[in-house]
C-alpha cells in the first residue's frame, strides 16, 4: 500500500471515504457499471484500503461519465465520482501517461461532433 | 507578542448544573486532562451568571472567565442560555467600549455528553489567555493579595 498515493487521492478528491456504509447504491445507480472493471463502491473501498495503484492501472477510471448520479444519491454523502476523478488525475499526471494525445483527435472526429466533446475529453484524459 | 512561559493565568469557569457541569464531570470520568488553572463554579443555569460576577472576577485578579451552558435549544430551563447569549453579547460591547480584550471572556456550549469538548475548550481557552498575558486593565490592585 502506497501511503503517499492514498493521501494524495484523499486530498485531491476532498472526500471522506470513511463515511461509506457499504450499501452499494453508487454501483446500483451507476450508468457505466457494465463498462467498469472496478465499480464505484470498489473505488471508495479500495481507496480506503490504500489499494490505489490497481485502480490507476484499470481502464475503469476512463469509463466514469462524471454524471454525479452516485454523488447525489449516496445516502452518506461520500461522493464516489470525486474519488474516481482523484484516482484518474493521479494516473494521468504521471509522466507520459496522458490517456488522450492531441494527435489522436483528428481520427476521432466526425462533422457533427461538438467541440465540447473534445475539450471535455482533453480535460478528463490528459494533464 | 511575547508570551511569558511562567505565567499561570487564573481562570474562572461558570458551568450550568445540567449540561456543562456534567460535561466537566464527564471529562474527569474519562480522565481527559486540562490545565489546573481552570476552577469551576457551579450555577443552576448559565443565565444565573450576572455580568457583574464576571467583572468581579476580573477585579479580583482573574485573567480569564469562561461561561459554559447547554447548547441552544437544550437548556434545562428552556430559554436560559438564550438570555446568557444576549447578555454576553452586551457585555462584549461594554468591554470593547472600555478597551478590555474581549478574548478574556468566552461563552461556550458544552453538553453533558461532551467531556472531550469541555477539556479541549479549557485547554484552548487557557492557552489563549496565556497568550494574552496577565489581566492588568481590570484588576483592582487594592484587591491583590500581597
Amino acid at each position, binding site marked *: 500500500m502506497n501511503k503517499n498515493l492514498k493521501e494524495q487521492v484523499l486530498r485531491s478528491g476532498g472526500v471522506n471515504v470513511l463515511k461509506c456504509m457499504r450499501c452499494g447504491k453508487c454501483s446500483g445507480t451507476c450508468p457505466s457499471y457494465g463498462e467498469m472493471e472496478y465499480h464505484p463502491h470498489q473505488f471508495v473501498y479500495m481507496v480506503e484500503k490504500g489499494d490505489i495503484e490497481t485502480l490507476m492501472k484499470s481502464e475503469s477510471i476512463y469509463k466514469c461519465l462524471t454524471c454525479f448520479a452516485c454523488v447525489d444519491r449516496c*445516502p452518506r454523502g461520500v461522493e464516489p465520482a470525486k474519488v474516481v476523478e482523484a484516482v484518474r488525475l493521479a494516473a494521468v499526471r504521471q509522466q507520459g501517461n496522458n490517456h488522450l494525445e492531441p494527435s489522436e483527435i483528428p481520427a476521432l472526429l466526425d462533422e457533427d461532433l461538438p467541440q465540447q466533446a473534445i475539450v471535455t475529453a482533453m480535460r478528463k484524459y490528459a494533464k | 507578542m511575547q508570551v511569558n512561559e511562567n505565567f499561570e493565568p487564573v481562570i474562572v469557569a461558570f458551568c450550568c448544573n445540567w449540561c456543562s457541569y456534567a460535561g466537566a464531570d464527564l471529562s474527569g470520568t474519562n480522565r481527559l486532562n486540562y490545565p489546573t488553572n481552570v476552577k469551576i463554579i457551579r450555577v443552576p443555569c448559565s443565565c444565573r451568571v450576572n455580568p457583574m460576577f464576571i467583572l468581579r472576577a476580573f477585579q*479580583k485578579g482573574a485573567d480569564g472567565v469562561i461561561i459554559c451552558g447547554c447548547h441552544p435549544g437544550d437548556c434545562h430551563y428552556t430559554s436560559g442560555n438564550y438570555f446568557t447569549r444576549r447578555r454576553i453579547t452586551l457585555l462584549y460591547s461594554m468591554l470593547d467600549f472600555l478597551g478590555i480584550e474581549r478574548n478574556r471572556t468566552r461563552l461556550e456550549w458544552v453538553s453533558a455528553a461532551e467531556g472531550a469538548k469541555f477539556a479541549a475548550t479549557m485547554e484552548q481557552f487557557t492557552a489563549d489567555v496565556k497568550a494574552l498575558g496577565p489581566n492588568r486593565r481590570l484588576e483592582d490592585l487594592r484587591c491583590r493579595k500581597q
Partner: protein
Amino acid sequence: MQRIGVFVCHCGTNIAATVDVKAVAEALGHEPGVVISQDYQYMCSESGQELVKSAIREQKLTGVVICSCSPRMHENTFRKAAASAGLNPYLVEIANIREQCSWIHKDIATATDKAIILGKAAVAKVHLNTPLSSMESPVVKRALVIGGGIAGIQTALDIAEAGFDVDIVEKQPTIGGKMAQIDKTFPTLDCAACILTPKMVEASQNEHITIHSFSEVADVKGFVGNFTVKIKKKARYVDETKCTGCGLCTEKCPMKKVPNEFNMGLDNRSAVYIPFAQAVPKVATIDPNYCMMLRSGKCGVCSKVCSAGAIDYKQQDTFIEQKYGAIVVATGFNPINLDKYDEFAYNQCPDVVTSLELERLMNAAGPNGGTLLRPSDKSHPHTIVFVQCVGSRCDDEKGKPYCSKICCMYTAKHAMLIREKYPDTEVYVFYIDVRTPGKNFDEFYRRAVEQYNVHYIKGMVGKVTPKSDGKIDVQASDLLANEQLHIDADMVVLAAAIEPDKTARPLATMLTTQMDTNDFFTEAHPKLRPVESATAGIFLSGACQGPKDIPETVAQGSAAAAKAIGLLCKNSITCNPCVAHSDELMCNGCSSCEKVCPYGAITYIDKEFRMPDRTTKVRRVASVNPAVCQGCGACTVACPSGAMDLSGFSNSQIMAEVDAICK
C-alpha cells in the same frame, strides 16, 4: 460565629493518588470559621458519614464542606446525613476534587493547590449559606396521556389499573394509531387488529379512562404534580354523545371522493366518515374540507338520515381545562415523505409504494379486501422488490441519521406473507445489513430466507424506471456477486424511514421537555431513566422517544405508567428550595423579571408599605411562587435593582466563591 467542619475524602486512591488529602485538610483547617478539618478514606461510606454526623453533633457545626466527588454524585447522601444529625441539609457544600481535580490532573503539587482553592471556595460559600426548607406541593391524582396509539393505550390502561383517573388526548377521530393500520405483527404473525382492538375497547369501557378523540393539547402550565392543561376539542360536526356509530350517514353521504387517510390514500371515503369499523369512539366525523354542506350550504343529507339527530353543522372547537399530576407523551411516529428520493420513482409510479401502504394493500379491511393487487391496474404482482433503508442511516443532508429499527423485521414479514399467500410471486429484498436483535427475530428472518425462499440481496437499488407496459425496471447492485442487476418488477416497496410526529416539537415546547436534533424526546438518562423526561412529571412512552417495535413500545408504555403511578401515589412532593425570592423593599415593580421567567412563576402584587414618615404607600412588587419557580436564576440577572436573588446560589455566595478562587 460560624463553626464549619471540613471533611476531605480519599476516595480510596481516586483522590488520594493525585491530591495530597492531608495537606488539603491541613490548609482548609486554617480558613476562618473552620473548627474541624479531617480526612477519611471513604467519606460516603457508613462510617465516613458517621464521622460527619458526630462532628456536627459534638462540634455544634453550623456548616459542612465535603471535599469529595461531584455533587451530582453524593450531594444528596451528605445532605441526608447532615439532616439526620440535626443540621439543615442546605448548609452542606461539596468541593468537587475528584471529577474536576484529581482525575484530570497528574502533578500532585498543582492538583493539591487546586483542591485547596476549590475547598476554600466551598468554605467561603458555606459561610453565607442559609437554612432552607423544602416546600411540599400536593399531587393531583389524575394523569394525561398524549397520543392514543398502542403506547398511549397501554400506559392509560396500566395507570387506570392502579386506580387513577387518566385522560387520553388523540388528534385523530379514533384511538389505535399506527398499529390499527398494520395487518400482521412480527415475529408471531398474529393479526394486529385482533390484539389491538380489544385493548381499544377496554380503554373506552374503563371507568377511569376518558378518551378525548379529535382533540389536541393547546396549552400546558404548572409543574410536577400540578399541571393545568388546556385541551382543544376540534369540531367534528357530530354530537359525540348522540351518535350511535350506525354508519348510515357515511353510506348516504354523496361526497365519496375523499382520499382515505386510514388506507394511506389508496382508496376513497365519504366526507362524513368513521375511520374504520372498530374505531373507538365509534362516532362519525365530518371533514369540513370536503363536506358540501359546510363548504357551500347545499346538501344536508347526513343530517336528514341521522335518526339520533347527532349531526351539528354549527359545532365549534371547544376548550376544556383539566388539572393533572403527571403527563405521559406518546405521540408516536410517521413514515417520512419520499419526495427527496424519487430515484425510486415513488411520485412517478403508483406501483411503487411504502411499506405502510403495503400493509393496507394486504389488509382484509384494506382497499382490495386483503388481496394483494397492484394499485395501478389491480393486477396480481408476480415480482416484488423491497428496498431497505430509504431515508434511514443517511448523513444529515440526505435523510435521517438513525436506523429506523423496525424495517428489517416488517420487510421479512411482508416477504414471508406474500410468499405464503402467493407462492408464484418472486420476492427480492435489497438490504445493506439485516438487523434482527430481538427475541425470535433472527429465526424469523432466516425462515423467510430458508423456508420461504425470499431472495435477499446485499446491495442497494439505485434507480427505478417505470415502463409503459406497466413493468418497473429496478436497477440495483448485488455486492456479493459484484454485478449490477436489472429486475423486471411489478411492484416496488420502499421501507421509508420513520420520524417523530410533527406535533411533537410544539408539544415539547409547551411541556418544556428536551428533544434531540431528530425531534425525538430526550430521556432523563439514556440507561437508567429511559421513560422519564428531564422535566419532572413528564414521562415518555413509545416511538416519540426513538424508533421502536410493538413489544418494546408496550413495554415502555407500561414502564412509563409505573413511573406515573409512582408519582400519583404520593400525596405531595418535595419541591426544590433553591428558588428565587424578591426583596420587596428593593423591588421597583419594573416587570423585568416577569418577562424572562420561563415558568410564569413571578406575579405582581400591590402591597402596602410603611414609609419613614409614618404614612403608608401601596407599591407594586414582584412575588415569586416558590412551587412554580424552578430556580434557573434568569430573573436575578434581569433585575435592575438587585432585589431578586436565588436561594442556594445567591449573589453573595457566588461572589464569595469568585473571590476565593481569584485570591
